């Protein structure tokens, strides 16, 4: 069945309008894309310093596709930690994928979308394409949203993997100050982009609480610092949210 798109005048077969896929890919030339590629240049350097073979790096970047998980997994391999220590730590760093997917799915669903479509495309969810698609979704007709997101996410997967692999081969020639600058892009980028996607004040508070509690718990309970900072910081921010939104007594 051919469906005519009111906004673009395109006709498309089936549930999705794939003419939006290349438009998503065009975001390769944007500031967030440039920052993410730079962050993966940094990750390629880290992988080189950790003596991770090139093939494993090329596999790891798109297969995991979440920079905090990459960092925790690589850190665990370097520390020669057991599978049963690394996997829970990566899982904790990746918990936010669940609410991110839950926020995106209702936006990119089209009439006729199946759950298995979402189970496939959700593997591409990571901060850059997610933020951008959430902001842009209202301007895109529903059948174009999933292709648009998938286009942006897939070009990011290819370009960041290529960047990380290139630096992995060249990193020995990079002066330490360049590597220090590249590694520092990640925390700056994460902090600013999460701040910008927060919907309620409580999420901004959670960012501040988690940032402040992280080093504190790292000194007190190094093994569980990220989990504790996340649970206590997040619950504290939610508590403030409840207090602020309390209904006045009738």
């Amino acid at each position, binding site marked *: 069945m051919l469906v005519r798109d009111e906004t673009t005048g395109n006709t498309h077969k089936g549930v999705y309008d794939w003419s939006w896929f290349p438009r998503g890919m065009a975001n390769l030339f944007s500031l*967030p894309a440039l920052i993410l590629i730079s962050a993966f240049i940094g990750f390629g*350097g*880290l992988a080189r310093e950790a003596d991770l073979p090139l093939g*494993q790096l090329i596999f790891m970047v798109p*297969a*995991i596709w979440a920079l905090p998980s*990459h960092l925790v*997994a690589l*850190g665990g*391999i*370097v520390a*020669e*930690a057991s599978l049963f220590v690394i*996997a829970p730590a*990566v*899982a*904790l*760093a*990746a918990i*936010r*994928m*669940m*609410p991110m997917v839950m926020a995106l799915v209702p936006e990119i669903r089209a009439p006729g979308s199946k*759950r298995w479509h*979402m*189970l496939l495309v*959700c*593997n591409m969810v990571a901060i850059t394409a997610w933020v951008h698609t959430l902001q842009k979704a209202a301007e895109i007709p529903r059948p174009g949203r999933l292709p648009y997101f998938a286009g942006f996410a897939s070009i990011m997967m290819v370009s960041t993997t290529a960047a990380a692999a290139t630096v992995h081969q060249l990193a020995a020639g990079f002066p330490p*100050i360049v590597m220090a*600058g590249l*590694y*520092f892009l*990640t*925390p*700056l*980028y*994460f*902090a*600013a*982009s*999460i701040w*910008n996607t927060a919907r309620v004040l*409580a999420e901004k508070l*959670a*960012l501040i*609480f*988690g*940032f*402040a509690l*992280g*080093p504190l*718990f*790292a000194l007190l309970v190094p093994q569980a*610092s*990220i989990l504790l*900072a*996340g*649970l206590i910081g*997040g619950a504290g921010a939610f508590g403030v*949210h409840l207090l602020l939104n309390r209904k006045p007594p009738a």
Partner: protein
Amino acid sequence: MFYDSFDYWWWPYAFITLAGVLPTAIWRWAGVFAIGNIDETSQWLTLVRCIATALVAAVISQLVFFPTGALEQVPLWLRASAALGGFGAFLFANNRLLVCMLVGQTILLGGILAIS
């Protein structure tokens, strides 16, 4: 089981899959299944988002305060001022991402050059 437990060529890939890929992907799949059942305006979703945000914030502060690689050689006070300076400038400049990156990097790289 460890990264170097077995000598097969495929073992590191299996290890990365078990230790890194699956523990990340499982939350994405859980999100797809949960969205069918949870009311999008539920307070629980706000709590989940707060915890998720605080978890990533803890990862961010780990990168600033306990880094690995080339950043390890940079003094703590310089890393902290670059992070707070970059983020402060970001807030001051109406939440512009580029300002955060430029100011943070300028403080960090300028500081490294100044002390070396």
